[in-house]
């Protein structure tokens, strides 16, 4: 009884009081080079310089992040749109506030010698996805539909997890193609795997993981959001310019990520993964255009339309309500050369 009470007390005290502490809920289970900006911003003091303290929480999936946001345990979360839009549709009062991955992170992959050349060739084939329920599969469905096939009948899905299991399934021809995402493919290639990628035309604009915040909180703490976004931007830039340093920073702050091969190989591997993620993060060169974290209204509309079409959400969701660009100027308000 006493113990339980103690635990609950501990729980109560760790839920932030909201001034300068921001709990950042992340939709993957663990730290990875794809999220290296987090480590960099911390280590380089970008968060501190902005007067905020960020408490990162790896929550495993977008759903968990969103739920955590509803009960106010997480201020800023990193859902994917296919999880976020239905939540908004169901009445969760959240808003996209920072455009992070500006394009899709996932694509089909096949072995180099596969007879599958384009998405059309997938007819009658088996596609490996991390699990049958993930957003990955929804986008796979969409891609297959784009190519004029019926995802229910013309292809088969098999859940193959990620990592070794997924690679092994492809390699042993238990599946004909994989549908996973950038950083996972990079990790596979790091092990010497050779992959050939394909993407359906129609889903090019469907950006992936993005940052969202509780609307009420963001109205009360606009400064915190701006501070966070600016620090994140700085870290992203720094990491893209100093990838090796960035990886070492990650190792330092997250020592458990430094495991596996010897240090040099691992450094190369992690830089590769980081680079893979940057393809979507740096898409359209936001540095040049000064549009870090800013949403392209058309891209958002495409997403909402797509979600409506695929019955993820009911028709009539107001596009302007799901995102805001009002903090975007602040994200870009710094001197890149000062980094």
């Amino acid at each position, binding site marked *: 009884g006493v113990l339980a009470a103690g635990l609950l007390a501990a729980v109560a005290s760790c839920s932030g009081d909201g001034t300068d502490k921001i709990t950042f809920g992340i939709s993957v289970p663990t730290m990875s080079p794809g999220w290296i900006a987090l480590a960099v911003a911390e280590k380089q003091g970008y968060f501190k310089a902005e007067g905020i303290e960020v408490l990162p929480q790896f929550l495993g999936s977008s759903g968990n992040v969103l739920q955590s946001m509803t009960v106010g345990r997480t201020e800023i979360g990193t859902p994917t749109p296919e999880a976020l839009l239905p939540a908004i549709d169901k009445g969760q009062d959240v808003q996209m506030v920072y455009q992070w991955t500006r394009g899709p992170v996932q694509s089909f992959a096949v072995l180099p010698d596969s007879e599958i050349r384009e998405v059309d060739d997938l007819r009658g084939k088996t596609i490996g996805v991390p699990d049958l329920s993930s957003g990955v599969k929804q986008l796979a469905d969409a891609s297959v539909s784009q190519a004029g096939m019926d995802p229910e009948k013309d292809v088969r899905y098999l*859940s193959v997890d990620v990592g070794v299991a997924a690679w092994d399934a492809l390699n042993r021809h238990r599946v004909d193609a994989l549908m996973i995402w950038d950083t996972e493919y990079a990790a596979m290639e790091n092990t010497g795997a050779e992959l050939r990628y394909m993407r359906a035309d129609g889903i090019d604009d469907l950006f992936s993981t993005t940052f969202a915040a509780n609307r009420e909180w963001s109205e009360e703490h606009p400064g915190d959001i701006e501070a966070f976004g600016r620090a994140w931007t700085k870290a992203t830039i720094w990491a893209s310019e100093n990838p090796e340093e960035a990886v070492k920073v990650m190792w330092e702050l997250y020592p458990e990520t430094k495991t596996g091969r010897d240090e040099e190989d691992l450094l190369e591997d992690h830089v590769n993964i980081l680079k893979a993620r940057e393809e979507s993060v740096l898409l359209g060169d936001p540095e040049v255009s000064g549009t870090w974290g800013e949403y392209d209204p058309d891209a958002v509309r495409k997403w909402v339309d797509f979600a409506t079409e695929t019955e993820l959400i009911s028709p009539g969701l107001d596009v302007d309500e799901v995102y805001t660009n009002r903090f975007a100027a602040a994200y870009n308000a710094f001197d890149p050369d000062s980094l």
Partner: protein
Amino acid sequence: MRAFLPLYVLVGVLAAWQWLPEELGVPDFIFPKFSLVVEKFTSVETLRLLLSNSWTTLFEAFLGLVLGAASGILAGFLLAESDVLRRAFYPYLIALQSLPKVAVAPLFVIWFGFGLAPKVLIVALLCFFPLLVNTMSGVMGVDANRLDLFRSLCASRLQVWRRLLLPTSLPSIFAGLEVAVVFSLLGAIVGEFVSADSGLGVVLQQQQNNYDTAGVFAVLLILCALGVALNQSVAWLRRRVLFWQTANK
């Protein structure tokens, strides 16, 4: 009055489930109230979906339970029988148990493919241990006089096993079974989480993903009901089989 306590508790639990979330202002997609969950069971389509997937999960759980329980009981007798065997193999069996199922599930998928096998094996692995330990513990508790009786009658090891140790350890084995039968469901779900094309675990993930919390709760409710039903079947069986234990109370 006291006889009605179970009923009161039931009503209380359901009432709390119905009213508390609303009272506390918890949104439906975080903790849906009871009526919303019940609604899930009113659509024929949903019912059919739940039914067919429950069947898959139950089947995996059942196969794994039979496999795990049978080998657990057998191993329990073998290890209780011989000190040498116990010292030689028990540590490895414990080691096997200490492998987190969530971590080995992907390995199982690699080794055993995507079919029934990995799920059944995970269930078996989870059910094996309670029966192993409880069988051993039951055998240890055998009355020394009865053992002497059998020894004096020159009973073979198999006879001692069948006519003395088995009945003696049955109460303990049944306790193990009561635990294992519930764990078998958990194991099937873990297996389905990693790789499956049907089963309640898949439905659960899909509904989580669709933000259909009431659906998630409906599946959890089904799992609870299955767990209770399985457990109570074992308890019922125990009362039948262990008549001499309940009768003299």
